């Protein structure tokens, strides 16, 4: 059907909201609680109000469904008045705080406040105006309900910045089904948070931080540790970054989503003062070697089927905390990040004759829970913490801006080759289905002994939540599944428990579409942005000279010179890990 917006006609479908039609056609509409991945919208921020010919007053366009003959007006005097006053009301608790805020310059509320010329101190007195006693009570009262949560390694929460948009509640409940957050209290004390203000004890996937429009939930900022290490003359700072990061890093510097900025990222890290820059993608190839070997072993012995991938730390935590009975099914292979960290402090350190104590190993990740992963007590294969610091893409960008380093003006640089060569299979790790495809490319050749004609496995690509297939490799019939988002993972686990689903190998990613939708990625990340990033990943795989993990010469060298073969004792010691039952235990 057609509706009219500001006297122009637009096509739309039956269940569309007016907001969706506006966004599709580039009509300006401020929103704070709406998010393209979190539908239906709740209509709580009242920013998207419009006037229509069907209702007397203002209605929220995010909840108003289209209908035949509907006429909408988006820029009337009343609407602008409403936006201005409501922004001033929301802004009252934020006025004057931007300079010290983590999200300065990247905050949705701040952006709207600037756009609508919000004065700021309309409803609150400025600090210097606070003289009377009862006003100090006001400040005291406000602080008494502020909840600060720094007790976990991954996420920071500061409720003074919360505008109660409820996006985090929705994403944690509907997409991840973990339900850490809810809306608590009433009246002006209403706050989004955990029950009894307990410290967060979830899977740290960071989706809440990813959707938060302000600084209420953010990644823990650990860039100071990076800075300290860089200026320490005793430390050799080695940095690695994940496959998906090179496709989104540019967005922090105004590039369109999916821009391939690998060279720029290496250059930025070098400009910051990193001594060596390695590619996590190499370790992804290594992971495939180990995991394919493990898969073949398990299917031969029919042990602990299905095997689950284990490179996603949020998925591992989900199993450990909520479904510990599936721990035996997890692959014992570490994640690429941890494998590279372990090798850097053993294999590479030995080669370069550097004492591992003097290596400070950093990784730049799309992920918040990698911070937790690097701190796990099992991740000390080298005798030291394999990865000393994990920073998210957002933190890196913040640091670069602080140091006034703009990648736009840097010449592209290459990885250090010792641990910097990768294949298309490794690159695929960045998106859901990638680990599976990479594993199949290697497993297929290893099992059949024949070279693969076609390396793409299209049936497991795409954005559906639960993709499964039966792959025939020689005599072997592999029943595989690819799952992303914890709600789908939970469904899969329940189906397996009920005997409704039988698989041999399952890839699980906690974040929507895998790491390219990770909790540490640049904001905004939504289905449109993720699609662009995925396309870039697939294009890169297609364009790489090597597209199968076992063809990686650096990987072959590591086995030849150091590890022996996949599954060897040394490989087990450095590249494999153990898990723990964490159900109902306070960490």
């Amino acid at each position, binding site marked *: 059907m057609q509706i009219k917006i500001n006297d122009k006609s637009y096509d739309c479908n039956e269940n569309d909201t007016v907001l969706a039609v506006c966004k599709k056609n580039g009509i300006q509409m401020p929103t704070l609680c709406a998010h393209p991945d979190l539908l239906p919208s709740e209509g709580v921020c009242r920013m998207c109000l419009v006037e229509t010919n069907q209702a007397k007053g203002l209605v929220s366009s995010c909840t108003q469904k289209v209908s035949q003959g509907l006429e909408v007006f988006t820029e009337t005097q009343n609407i602008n008045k*409403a936006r201005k*006053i409501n922004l001033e*009301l*929301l802004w009252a608790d934020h006025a004057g705080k931007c300079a010290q805020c983590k999200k300065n310059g990247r905050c949705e509320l701040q952006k709207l406040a600037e756009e609508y010329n919000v004065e700021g101190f309309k409803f609150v*007195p400025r600090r210097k105006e606070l003289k009377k006693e*009862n006003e100090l009570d006001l400040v005291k009262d406000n602080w008494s309900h502020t909840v600060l949560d720094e007790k976990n390694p991954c996420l920071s929460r500061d409720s003074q910045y919360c505008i109660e948009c409820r996006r985090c509640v929705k994403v944690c409940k509907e997409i991840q089904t973990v339900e850490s957050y809810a809306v608590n209290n*009433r009246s*002006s004390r209403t706050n989004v948070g955990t029950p009894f203000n307990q410290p967060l004890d979830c899977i740290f996937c960071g989706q809440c931080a990813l959707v938060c429009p302000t600084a209420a939930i953010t990644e823990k900022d650990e860039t100071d540790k990076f800075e300290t290490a860089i200026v320490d003359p005793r430390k050799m700072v080695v940095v690695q970054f994940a496959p998906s990061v090179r496709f989104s890093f540019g967005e922090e510097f105004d590039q369109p989503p999916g821009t391939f900025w690998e060279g720029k990222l290496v250059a930025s890290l070098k400009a910051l003062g990193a001594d060596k820059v390695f590619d996590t993608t190499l370790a992804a190839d290594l992971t495939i070697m180990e995991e394919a070997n493990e898969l073949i072993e398990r299917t031969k012995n029919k042990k602990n089927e299905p095997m689950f991938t284990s490179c996603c730390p949020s998925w591992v935590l989900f199993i450990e905390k909520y479904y510990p009975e599936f721990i035996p099914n997890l692959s014992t292979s570490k994640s690429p990040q941890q494998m590279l960290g372990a090798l850097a402090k053993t294999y590479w350190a030995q080669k370069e004759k550097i004492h591992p104590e003097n290596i400070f190993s950093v990784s730049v990740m799309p992920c918040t829970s990698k911070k937790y992963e690097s701190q796990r007590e099992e991740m000390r294969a080298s005798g030291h913490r394999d990865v000393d610091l994990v920073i998210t893409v957002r933190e890196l960008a913040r640091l670069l801006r602080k140091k006034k380093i703009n990648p736009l003006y840097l010449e592209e640089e290459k990885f250090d080759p010792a641990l910097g060569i990768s294949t298309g299979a490794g690159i695929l790790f960045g998106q859901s289905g990638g680990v599976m495809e990479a594993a199949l490319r290697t497993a297929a050749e290893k099992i059949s002994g024949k070279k693969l004609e076609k390396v793409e496995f299209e049936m497991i690509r795409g954005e559906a939540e639960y993709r499964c297939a039966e792959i025939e490799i020689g005599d072997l019939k592999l029943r595989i599944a690819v799952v992303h988002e914890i709600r789908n993972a939970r469904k899969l686990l329940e189906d397996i428990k009920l005997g409704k689903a039988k698989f041999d190998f399952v890839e699980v990613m906690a974040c929507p579409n895998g790491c390219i939708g990770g909790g540490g990625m640049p904001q905004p990340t939504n289905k449109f942005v993720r699609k662009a990033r995925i396309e870039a990943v697939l294009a890169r795989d297609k364009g790489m000279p090597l597209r199968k993990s076992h063809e990686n010469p650096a990987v072959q060298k590591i086995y030849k010179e150091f590890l022996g073969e996949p599954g060897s004792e040394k490989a087990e010691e450095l590249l494999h890990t153990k898990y723990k039952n964490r159900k109902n235990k306070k960490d």
Partner: protein
Amino acid sequence: MQILTRNWDKIDPLNIDSYIRQRGYEALQKVIRNMDGAEVIVEIKSSGLRGRGGAGFSTGEKWETAAKTAADEKYFICNLDESEPGTYKDRTIAEKNPHQILEGILIGAYAIGAKKAYVYINGNYKKQAEILRIAIDQAREKELVGRGILGSAIDVEIEVFEGAGAYICGEETALLNSIEGKRGEPRLKPPFPPVSGLFGKPTIVNNAETVANIPYIIRQGAKKYSQIGSAVSPGTKLFVLSGAVKNKGIVEAPLGITAQELIYNSLYGGGLEMGKEFWFAQIGGASGRLVPAGKLDQPLTYGNCEYPLGSGSILVVDKNANIKDLLLSWAGFFHRESCGKCAPCREGTYRLWEIAKRLKSNDFREKDRENIEDILWTLSNTTFCPLGKFASVAWGDAVKMFWDEIFKA
């Protein structure tokens, strides 16, 4: 004119027989034996009965929508949450004549095809909840509630559901959320409860006073009822008089009566207390408009009124009253009761309350005048549910009528 309060002096709330002796449950018998649901609805529609909680929507039309919506389960809910300040009429019906409410509920449930009914009662009304429970048990013993009512195939179960202290739960969709074990936050409308209500099923939410009118309408007929009161909203209303009137309390009067009569007629308010001079009257509780002396002669109905009658409570304020105390009372109430879901109400009521506190200590700021206007405007026009509008009504009138008074030191 006594429809609701008829024979209350002859009825013992804890004795069902005393109710039956006053023609109690006759209407229910008539309905179960001689009428089908559709006929009941036609009767209620033509009576012109409108909701007595304040919204004034046609009860019959609501019932019709619920009856027409196909579903495997339907619910009938009597709203006795009654949290509007100055209102205690529903509580009084429950403690004086609980069976009047129960009979109305049973007839309503039958009309729409509901097998389960709730009485959502204010959490503070513990005594009244007990009275209702005893009444339900006594009715059950006489096969008037539960399975096989009066030997028929009709089952209607009634349960008393106690609230836990939240004014917003008087709003029908917030009430539904409350029963579902959630926060009492209002829902988006549409869908409306008669189409999708409790647990997504067709649900009727009627005010207790509305429900209490049902037995009379069935017994005496819609035509007779429609001739009482005013043409646009027939019947009588329980008005609650408080403040500076001589006779404080509950009076029953036909709709269409004026505030002038209610306040000054010796049958009702009996005029102002000795030595007190009339300043204004607030009609409809804390969310009601302020009526000056010159406007008291407007008929109070549920039609289009300049001064809507709302819940029917009338607070008479005399010239000795401190307007700033009242402003603080109104602002504090709506701030406390705001559910916190939408930004303008959550933040607006808070800022208005801050201003009210400062006004009380004569601490005026230059920005106050504009801020008050802006907050009242946004509360009135941009909130998720009507509570925002309610919060702006009394202040809106006060600021227009008593600006100098408020801002003088």
